[in-house]
């Protein structure tokens, strides 16, 4: 059974149809790309998947569980994590706190322990601290652990955001333009990292990206959208040669 099964997803905003009859199935361990020109509805798909919007029509089944109508935090807790196009860190919190926040819903202690700093609190804190520092190490951020996250350099912020998403222990990771603002060398590193992520954390990854080099280099399967419709789907080589894709990006007659 597919990890994620989206059927006939349609999203209206007032009279505007942002996404129309979108279907996708993700198998465990896949890396799939979603591309298309600006305004094609890619981010809307992400937002529907993560519960920011409730779809007008369609079903989304994640790991055998219908997640339509669930709130964002419930979906995250069910195992879908995401990053944002424009980085959204908890910029006034420290780097390590960003990770710890993502661990919050698994935290072993409750409100009472928090008020009283019981033994359970200290155990929980120790646990999350170990967990967070280990995760930061994997992303080479442990040296910045106590820095305010908003003061990190751009690349480190990107890495932190991914690390934070991973701290929720997801099975599906959704990346919204992870390579935005990166130079070719950084993008290469990112591609390597995406593969490494998949293997290390046993993930399925869905990503939106504009840098074709990244998409083509990292994705095993690509879906192309234009004006809310899926226009084409397949392996990178197939997409590269499809005239409809060219047309969507460059206009008719190009």
């Amino acid at each position, binding site marked *: 059974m597919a990890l994620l099964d989206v059927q006939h997803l349609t999203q209206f905003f007032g009279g505007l149809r942002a996404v129309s009859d979108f279907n996708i199935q993700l198998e465990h361990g896949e890396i799939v790309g979603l591309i298309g020109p600006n305004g094609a509805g890619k*981010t809307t798909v992400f*937002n529907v998947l993560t519960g*920011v919007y409730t779809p007008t029509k369609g079903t989304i089944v994640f790991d055998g569980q219908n997640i339509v109508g669930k709130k964002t935090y419930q979906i995250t807790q069910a195992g879908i994590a995401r990053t*944002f196009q424009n980085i959204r860190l908890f910029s006034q919190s420290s780097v390590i706190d960003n990770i710890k926040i993502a661990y919050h819903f698994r935290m072993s202690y409750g409100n009472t322990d928090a008020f009283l700093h019981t033994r359970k609190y200290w155990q929980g804190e120790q646990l999350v601290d170990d967990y967070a520092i280990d995760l930061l190490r994997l992303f080479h951020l442990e040296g910045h652990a106590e820095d305010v996250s908003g003061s990190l350099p751009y690349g480190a912020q990107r890495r932190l955001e991914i690390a934070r998403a991973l701290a929720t222990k997801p099975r599906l990771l959704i990346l919204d333009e992870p390579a935005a603002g990166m130079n070719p060398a950084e993008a290469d590193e990112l591609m390597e990292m995406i593969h490494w992520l998949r293997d290390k954390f046993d993930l399925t990854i869905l990503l939106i990206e504009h840098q074709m080099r990244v998409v083509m280099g990292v994705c095993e399967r690509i879906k192309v959208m234009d004006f809310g419709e899926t226009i084409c789907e397949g392996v990178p080589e197939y997409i590269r040669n499809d005239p409809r894709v060219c047309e969507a990006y460059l206009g008719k007659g190009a």
Partner: protein
Amino acid sequence: MGQFLQQLINGIQIGSIYALIALGYTMVYGIVRLINFAHADIFMVGAYMGFFLAPVMARVFGGAFIPTIIAAMLITGLLGFIMEKLAYRPLRYKSRLSALITALGVSLFLENFCALPFVFTPAFRKFPDLIVARNIPIPGNLGLNISNVLLLDVGVSVILMVLLFWFVNKTLIGKQMRAVAFDKPTASLMGINIDVVISTAFIVGPALAGAGGILYGTTYGMLASPFLGIWPGLKAFIAAVLGGIGNIPGAVLGAYIMGISEAFATSVNSNLGYGIAFAILIGILLVRPSGLLGKFMPEKV
């Protein structure tokens, strides 16, 4: 029926004064995202200017109302300008909340400074009769009571509001104001002088409050103390939020709703009238979280 109409008229009259104050709140908010708590005290200064200037104006110009209202508007406009320069400008690019607390401080300062013995004193003042109150005969026997003061309140408010709409929509500086309200960085890149725009907002808004102060004095004939602005100011501020803060027609709509609902709530139960107005407000905001005419803009993800 007669009572219903009369309460409606009562509500419209007080709503007109709220509207003039609310416009200033909303204009300043639209441009600098600051709840200028001191606005209520500018209204108060406007009212006191009427008290001090009316006799002088009557001697110089013969008639008192129009010269007084213009002079009061000029003075409160200047006060707003100075206030922005001294108190708010240093905080402009810093935390919004610091600016808010500063506004509270400026408000306290104005109130207590004006209450000093050699300024306005805390004493009651009889406001000069700028026009002689008369009732206007209404045909029919509904027992309606409409005075020339009421017509003056509504008339002056409407004229000033129309002027403001013209100013904001048709003049260059007005258009610049709208651009700045919409997107400050972009407006600045387009070569709009933000300083000038902000100063203008801090002149025009307080000038309207000054006019409101004169109408207030003329209508009620009494200035209780330099603290008189607090409550009309609060009501007007609530009205501005009710209409959708930052939205000019919204402020006017909110002010009239506030005035009318207050009149009706009072006539239903005068003991609870004050509270009912707040309950209505909570109700409206829960249904329309961004006010009546405010656009609900969820954060873009």
